[in-house]
């Protein structure tokens, strides 16, 4: 009996020291919840970790424009207090769309970098200033392990959330499967939405857009996938009403070989 207790105590001490060493301690840090229990349940700490690096990509042909990824990031940052630094490679972003999900124009400072290396420099610059709500960078091309680790460390030290929107001209770009030091990796794909009025499907009009949200990689959690409705004007996602009562609100898929 005593030996059992001794072993259990030693194991607990070992777990505590591992948690102290590094990444798992962050699970007790601050998070921002999505407001959707199915998603929050899969994330360590019950929400998206603040003061960490997260990667977001759009799936399908939207990978070139990254619209869904942009709306998801804007919705998250709209609910955090403070200014946002948005680093662009190309000036094709249209500001009223961000205003439509709750990220007012006064809060966003844009910096046009012109190329991927400068975007990373600017993101690191922004992450050194605590007091920002978040730093978003639109990146095409490779995000190396060293670069992502630098961003992650800078985010941890200042507590500023860092989101990398990855865009590419090629669908299913192999670069996106390379390992990075991001805490979570998301892929957002647009899926067809049903008709606006379910009882009168021929009525012209558009329902709220729908996404398939994949948590591709999560440190301290398992990959999972959900169908959600896109961010509304307050920046929140929600589960579609017609799926909420169904048996599969969260399709958990254990994908072992999924990249990163």
């Amino acid at each position, binding site marked *: 009996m005593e030996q059992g207790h001794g072993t259990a105590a030693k194991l607990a001490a070992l777990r505590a020291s591992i948690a102290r060493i590094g990444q798992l301690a962050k699970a007790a840090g601050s998070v921002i919840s999505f407001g959707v229990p199915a998603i929050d349940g899969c994330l360590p700490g019950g929400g998206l970790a603040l003061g960490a690096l997260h990667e977001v990509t759009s799936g399908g*042909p939207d990978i070139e*424009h990254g619209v869904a990824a942009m709306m998801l990031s804007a919705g998250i940052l709209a609910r955090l*207090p403070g200014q946002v630094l948005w680093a662009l490679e190309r000036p094709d972003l249209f500001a*009223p769309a961000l*205003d439509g999900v709750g990220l007012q124009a006064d809060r*966003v400072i844009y910096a046009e970098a012109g190329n991927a290396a400068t975007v990373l420099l600017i993101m690191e610059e922004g992450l050194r200033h*605590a*007091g*920002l709500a978040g730093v978003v960078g639109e990146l095409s091309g490779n995000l190396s392990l060293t670069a992502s680790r630098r961003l992650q460390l800078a985010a941890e030290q200042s507590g500023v959330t860092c989101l990398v929107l990855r865009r590419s001209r090629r669908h299913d770009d192999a670069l996106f499967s390379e390992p990075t030091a991001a805490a979570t990796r998301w892929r957002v794909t647009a899926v067809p939405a049903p008709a606006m009025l379910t009882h009168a499907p021929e009525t012209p009009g558009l329902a709220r857009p729908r996404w398939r949200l994949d948590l591709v990689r999560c440190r301290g959690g398992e990959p999972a996938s959900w169908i959600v409705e896109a961010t509304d004007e307050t920046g929140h996602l929600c589960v579609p009403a017609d799926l909420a009562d169904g048996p599969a609100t969260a399709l958990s898929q254990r994908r072992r070989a999924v990249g990163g």
Partner: protein
Amino acid sequence: MPLAQGQALVPGLTVISATPERDAEALEEAAAWCLRYAPLTAPDSPNGLWIDATGCTHLFGGEAATLADIVKRLGRSGITSRAAIADTPGASWATARYGTDPITSVPPAEAAEALRPLPVAALRLDAETITGLRRLGFERVGQLLDAPRAPFALRFGQLVIRRIDQAPGSVSEPIEPIAPPNLVSSRLAFPEPLLTPEALSHVIARLTALVCGELERRGEGARRLDLIFERIDRTEQAICIGTARPNRTLGHLGRLLDEQLERVDPGLGIEAMRLAVPLAEPIGFAQPRVSLIGDENTGADVSVLVDRLVNRLGAPKVYRAAPVESDVPERSVRRVGPLSPLAGARWPKNLPRPARLLRPPQPIETLAMLPDHPPAQFVWRRHRHRIRHADGPERIGGEWWVSDRERSAVRDYWQVEDVDGRRFWLFRSGDSVDPATGDLRWFLHGFF
């Protein structure tokens, strides 16, 4: 005449007290302003300015252009002026006040000739002497220059002789320049020339410390910094940085300078460095914000961040977006400075706008029934998109006050979703009823 007599002559006379001290101060300030034209300037009370413009006029496009610029800029501040430039101070003084044109440029070596037709008062003599000379029949300077000089010395003293000698420039007459406002600057020279970036960085840190100390003594912060590198071959290289708010933090200024260091070519070595502050502004001591509610975002951090971004990317590349009251989407956004005051303005709600906007809108091929139906499909970049749902039309009219061509132009916008779930923003130019509103071509304008 006494004031009472004047008021009796003209009823309702406006009386303003003269303030000679304030006038003298204003004249000093004007002389300091003229330092932009030449390094040596002085006020000439009660109503004139001396500028020693030797070797400086070519910077402004020549003598006549410099004078015209001075007169124009003074005119903008509400000061009417006359200007003249000549070889000698006496000739320029005389020509400015008594010459025929408000702006005169006396050709070199013709100072004496230019003075001849001017009245005797142009020689800067006192009133008694002038009256005496006129009583004797001397009206023009030319007569004075021709007449024998000894009787003048007896009658009027040495001043007349001196002025007659100074006029053609036989006797020199330097002006007493005012001291320019002293700027903060510090300079370090090295016993051996420096080549490596680390050594230069170290010196930058020392210079910045000296300059920040001086700024703190004066209670000012730097807005512009010029760092000048003096190379062994007597050439100079310079880097300039600016800050959005007056700043004297050692770390911040040092880092801004270090970032620009790679633009400097040290050549064979740098023997001295000078750090000057051409623009400094008083810095108020701000009470640090202490609050139990910990969610106030620190505005100070953002100005430091903006400085670093602007110095790296350039001011046009760092901005915030602000709404413009315009229906046309590509004109509804404008860029403002990143530290401009928060306006709180927002775009109209309930009007869906795409996340990416194509500039210019891309033409597409479509199949649509007129006049009010969205397309059933469209082809863009050789992909065919079949449309399942659509919302619209949102009619946006042209702005006749911007351009004449837009007077009757109309766009009908549709937000469409294709079978894969992707959403696009299409428009048809023209309302299909009136041909003047557009030619019914379809375009893709953005992605949702």
